[in-house]
């Protein structure tokens, strides 16, 4: 069938996917390239940058935003958004602190807190999915209410007097290989990211997440439980926020109700910078991981240069815009509008 042959021949199905063109590859994985450039700049600025100690520090500092951004990636892949994560981090941090201060077994306290976080996320997801309310609105309400609840727990007073062993969740030093000791919270972040990437890539659920975000109507018609998938991604986001809150409280050694303000914006910025589309269906946790580290390295550079946080905020915004424009350009080149 010559006609059909020539027709399929026209379609660069393989050409785009499998013919290695270095430039395309570079553009495709631009976040890796940008990350490497920033790392090179940083290592030129300071001899101490590429030391194991500094790298371990960077990962630890990025851990709280990192785990939250991993959860946020699931939500954004379904074309939703979760603005409540910062408040849920603070809420969970306070809950775990209160439980511990009341003498609850630490393992039980952590598990309970994780369950509460997942339930908080799931209920926001359920309201959004089943009542058809945009998740932007539902989680905006969550942002306000959970912060309010956090203050109500102790009337705004930090909780101290946590058992000494609790901080080991965050700050045990784990020797990964000779000379490289990573703190446990850094390790938790990396493990969570790897697990999430595997779930998205290898499981049926992961594929459902992409399908629901890519074309919800097609997914529904294919028999996918799209509403329950949306509930599940919000539950994951809530769970990861609770994990972030636990790590934060363990590191600070107090429950701090004012913690993690604006964290949702850092997490969303990282997800978008990592190439995940706000319109859903496109993106990866690997991208998020690189983006979280990129933002952390940038902060590190600014500190090395002695630039204050005003500069940091301004330039971070500019970098996010540049990355998003680059992705739009990529879409345009591939003929998507």
């Amino acid at each position, binding site marked *: *069938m010559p*006609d*059909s*042959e020539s*027709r*399929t*021949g*026209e*379609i*660069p*199905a*393989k050409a*785009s*996917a*499998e013919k290695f063109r270095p430039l395309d590859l570079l553009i495709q994985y631009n976040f890796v390239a940008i990350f490497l450039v920033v790392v090179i700049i940083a290592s030129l600025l300071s001899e101490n940058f590429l030391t194991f100690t500094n790298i371990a520090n960077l990962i630890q500092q990025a851990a709280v935003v990192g785990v939250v951004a991993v959860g946020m990636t699931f939500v954004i892949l379904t074309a939703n958004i979760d603005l409540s994560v910062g408040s849920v981090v603070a809420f969970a941090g306070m809950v775990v602190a209160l439980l511990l201060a009341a003498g609850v077994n630490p393992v039980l306290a952590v598990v309970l807190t994780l369950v509460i976080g997942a339930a908080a996320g799931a209920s926001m997801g359920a309201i959004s999915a089943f009542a058809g309310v945009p998740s932007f609105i539902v989680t905006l309400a969550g942002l306000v209410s959970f912060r309010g609840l956090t203050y109500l727990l102790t009337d705004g007073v930090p909780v101290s007097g946590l058992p000494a062993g609790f901080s080991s969740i965050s700050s045990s030093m784990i020797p990964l290989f000779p000379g490289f000791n990573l703190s446990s919270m850094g390790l938790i972040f990396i493990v969570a990211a790897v697990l999430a990437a595997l779930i998205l890539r*290898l*499981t*049926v*659920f992961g*594929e459902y997440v*992409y*399908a629901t*975000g*890519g*074309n919800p*109507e*097609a*997914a*529904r*018609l*294919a*028999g*996918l*439980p799209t509403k329950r998938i949306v509930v599940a991604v919000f539950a994951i986001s809530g769970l990861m926020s609770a994990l972030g809150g636990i790590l934060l409280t363990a590191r600070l050694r107090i429950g701090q109700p004012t913690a993690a303000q604006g964290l949702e914006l850092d997490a969303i910025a990282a997800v978008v910078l990592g190439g995940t589309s706000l319109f859903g*269906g*496109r993106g990866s946790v690997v991208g998020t991981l690189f983006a979280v580290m990129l933002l952390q390295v940038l902060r590190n550079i600014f500190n090395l240069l002695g630039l204050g946080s005003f500069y940091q905020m301004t330039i971070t915004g500019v970098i996010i815009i540049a990355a998003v424009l680059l992705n739009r350009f990529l879409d345009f080149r*591939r003929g*998507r509008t």
Partner: protein
Amino acid sequence: MGRPMTEAMAVDNVSKVFPPNIVALEQASLHVTKGEVHCLIGANGAGKSTLLKIIAGAVKPTAGTIRIDGRETHLRSPADAASRGISMIYQELDLVQQLTVEQNLFLGQVPARLGLIDARTRRARAVEALRRVGAGFDPDARVESLSVANRQLTAIARSLTREASIIIMDEPSGPLNETELERVFAIIRELTAQGVAIVYVSHRLEELHEIGDRVTVLRGGRTIETFDVADTDDRTLVHAVIGENRTLLERHARPPLRDDTALRIERLTGADGLDIADFEVRWGEIAGITGLNGSGRTSLLRSLFGVRPFSGTVTLDGQPFHPRTPIAAISRGVGMVPEDRKVEGLILDAPVYTNATLPLMRKSSLARHGRRKAAARSVLARLSTKYGQPEQKVIQLSGGNQQKVVLAKWVANRSKLLLLDEPSRGLDVGAKADLYELISELAADGAAVIVASSELDELHAHCDRVWVLYEGRLLGSFDPATTDQNTMLSAQILGRNHA
């Protein structure tokens, strides 16, 4: 028919009313036997899509029964229908563009163990399904990188991966070439030989003859009749599709055509095979464009309004015309009434006068409510629109009056070339007559009007010339005064110039 008639599915007296009270189906019935190709035809709005969606579990019927394999069933969801052996190939919306072909093939039924995708099994089954439809593309290709024809083959391959006993194909032939269509027909024959029932929707009567055993005609949400394809000629089918009331529309007298050309298309080409040549409209003319869904009616109008990119040579009033934005088209005196007035034509929650004067606002920087209300009042009065106050929300008007508000935009803007896409859709008989009277008044005032519609009887009654589009090309124009509708209809449906 020689083969045993075992019932695969029986749909009886199914009705569907969409809120508030739009009746899409009224006691429609469809009986499908095992191993047959059962064709379903009907004009736009006859209720085909609603019926198919009910069978596929995507829409719940208001009344009626569905029996599958002799047992009465309530289909709760698409997943439920799939588990009962019903597989639906939608025209477009059921592939996820961002996923690969292979992922799409098994969406909703991925081979998996403990939630982990069994990649090896999936690959083997994907390769097999794609081989069966004769697909030459990679299972790892993303659907968005495929041509429309290859997407269609993907959708067909997908239904092969599910052990379906009833497969519904909604106009599968649209994007396929002859070789590909032959391959699909071969697959259909293979499936029916195994006892699978196929429900095949197509407008093309020649396909019906080639592949169909029986054909059911829907009109106005009702089942008109089921015919054996072998004993039925096209004329009978066409009559069943368009019904008897078409003779009710009297042809209106039209003044002789003027000599001065308004719009002339020497050549206009665009995406999806749109290729128009030698088209013209004179000032004061009402030109009809008809054709099946997907023949390019809407695409042509959108191109002329600067919404859809095109290349070629077009002149308006003797000057080159190549609008790249609606603003460019509007400033040349072009106005468009889009197909879906609620989505593209009106801001439903805004007042009547805002809607009627929206294009005028670009000429001033102040909102000028008083002046616009006055302008809206005079234009709407001229179009004899019924409404309470100019401040009334447009959503509260009837369909006919809403359409007049859409038209009022361009009358207020003094547009000279009006592009009307299915302007009478959803209007009752009185409102339709009203609308066409307005159109001929506007034409009498010198405007050139292009009416794109699948309602051939309306075009026949009101137009100076009717052009027939078939698969993106013009077959030519007919003079309704000297051509009967059946000739045009067979051109519209069969793509032939002579009956």
